[in-house]
């Protein structure tokens, strides 16, 4: 990507925390009154990447990998220990009002709406906070309410809404000022499949309509597959991979799965590849990508095949493999 067109520029970014450590028990507790021991935790360690306008990037990693810490630095909540960050030409840690008006950070487990009032009242407060012109506010609010099918819920007190409904309201509130950059930290966490799909579609539409740049963390690979062409994989504070989803699969899973439905049982299926599952009428093989077509041709020629499918491994498996390939 041309560095001049990048909306988000991260260079050598680190965040270290000093954490007090002590052993369990009264003795250690008493000792800590006089002498405390600290250790440095490198939550984010020298990461660099750039994201262009309108890109939707998945930021993946296991729990404690440094995803949320990075998002918090990008949104200005945390001061970096070292390194440079620029988002929309601003330094996030300065938290200038101009900058904050152009971004949003949505966290799946965070509630910002007034619990006791209908969400529509909280939206009014957001209008005042973000200085949204009245006409624009009404237009955008109504548009989002329609997109997320919230018309019947927007006048109900937030405390009476379900988790999914509340999450949709939170998303509407976070986007009323039509930010140019969205940091989404597990926006679909805890939601059922239908609700997850609805929110994914909404994010997709928002990205298209407003050419917004989106950096998304999620443990649901369906979110990542549906929204992100590019993924950044992070673990122990370091970036392990930055590229397209297909490159990730290519790099971390050089195997394909061939599923064969047979009209009668066969003997010795392992001659075609590694057998990962077998029932009386079905066999699943794992084969190297390079030999997929040759193996497929042999199976079709040799065996009584009713049906055959060739698939990449599930993205969850690929990601898991990527996490375990630290240092590659």
């Amino acid at each position, binding site marked *: 990507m041309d560095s001049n067109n990048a909306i988000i520029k991260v260079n050598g970014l680190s965040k270290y*925390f000093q954490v007090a450590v002590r052993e369990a028990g009264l003795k250690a507790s008493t000792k800590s009154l006089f002498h405390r021991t600290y250790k440095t935790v490198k939550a984010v360690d020298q990461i660099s990447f750039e994201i262009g306008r309108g890109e939707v990037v998945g930021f993946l990693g296991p729990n404690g990998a440094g995803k949320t810490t990075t998002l*918090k630095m990008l*949104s*200005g*909540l*945390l*001061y970096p220990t070292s390194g440079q960050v620029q988002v929309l030409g601003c330094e996030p840690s300065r*938290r200038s*009002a*101009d900058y*904050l*008006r152009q*971004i*949003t*950070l949505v*966290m799946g*487990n*965070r509630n*910002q709406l*007034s619990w*006791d*009032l209908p969400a529509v*009242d*909280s939206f*009014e*407060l957001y*209008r*005042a*906070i*973000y*200085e949204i012109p009245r006409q624009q506010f009404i237009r955008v609010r109504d548009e989002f309410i329609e997109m997320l099918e919230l018309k019947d819920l927007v006048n109900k007190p937030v405390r009476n809404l379900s988790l999914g409904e509340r999450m949709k309201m939170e998303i509407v509130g976070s986007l009323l000022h039509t930010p140019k950059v969205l940091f989404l930290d597990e926006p679909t966490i805890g939601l059922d499949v239908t609700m997850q799909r609805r929110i994914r579609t909404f994010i997709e539409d928002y990205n298209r309509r407003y050419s917004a740049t989106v950096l998304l963390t999620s443990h649901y690979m369906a979110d990542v597959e549906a929204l992100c062409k590019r993924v950044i994989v992070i673990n122990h504070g370091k970036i392990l991979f930055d590229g397209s989803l297909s490159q990730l699969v290519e790099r971390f899973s050089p195997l394909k799965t061939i599923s064969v439905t047979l009209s009668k049982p066969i003997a010795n299926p392992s001659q075609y590849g590694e057998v990962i599952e077998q029932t009386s009428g079905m066999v699943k093989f794992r084969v190297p990508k390079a030999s997929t077509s040759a193996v497929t041709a042999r199976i079709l020629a040799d065996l009584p095949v009713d049906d055959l499918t060739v698939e990449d491994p599930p993205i969850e498996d690929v990601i898991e493999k990527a996490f375990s390939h630290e240092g590659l």
Partner: protein
Amino acid sequence: MRHYLDFYLTSMKIAIQEQFQYPVANYFYMIGMIAEPVIYLVVWSTVATLQGGTVGGYAPGYFAAYYIVWTLVRNMNIVFTPYGWEMRIQRGQLSGELLRPIHPLHSDVAYFAGWKVVVIVLWLPLAACLALIFKPSLNPTWLQVVVFFIAIWGAYLIRTMLLSLLGMITFWTTRVGALYELFFAFELILSGRLVPMALMPGWVQTISAFLPFQWTFFFPINALVGNPTTPDLLYGLGMQLVWIIAGIFFARIVWRLGIRRYAAVGN
């Protein structure tokens, strides 16, 4: 400026709407608060009667007026506490407010200001009942009434700044509750909350003159129930302004230093 006005009015409106969700709870809360001034009132009225009708020149009617007005001033002095700051910093609840293009202190001031409007409305019938029971001597001039009305908001702002400053210490200490209790002890003695400042020993009054506490309690109450001269009233408002400006000044410094230490844990 227009932006801030819009934000304050909207935020106050939201606070009023929220408080109207729980009118009974609000009333019980206020009634519960009456116990403290009523005890003070009964004690000082009894002492005055035993001493031939007055204490330090004040008759029971003055004490009645002092402690009835006290109930409103006390409610105006309720602000976002250091315990609240402790919670929002420790648990990362500050994050949501930091993402907004408006300082969290504005949000606190605006929200509690809205709550005060509800408090004033609820206080009026309560004050009427107390007046029927304790028969206060209260004959303020129009100037006193106007100054009182300004002074209760001045008191609110001073105390907001003081307690916010205390609360921001959580950026360094994680816990600030103990410090707040210490602050509270000083405030009780030096503010006029326990007893009108004029009844305190001379040296306490001297110390108090250099501290912000009496401008949050004694000054607003005395502005309405005492016999202050016009220069006294203007001086009091001036002192409130000085402490508000000082509070904002120090809050800005502490905030700038502290926010760098914010770990945004949990949220």
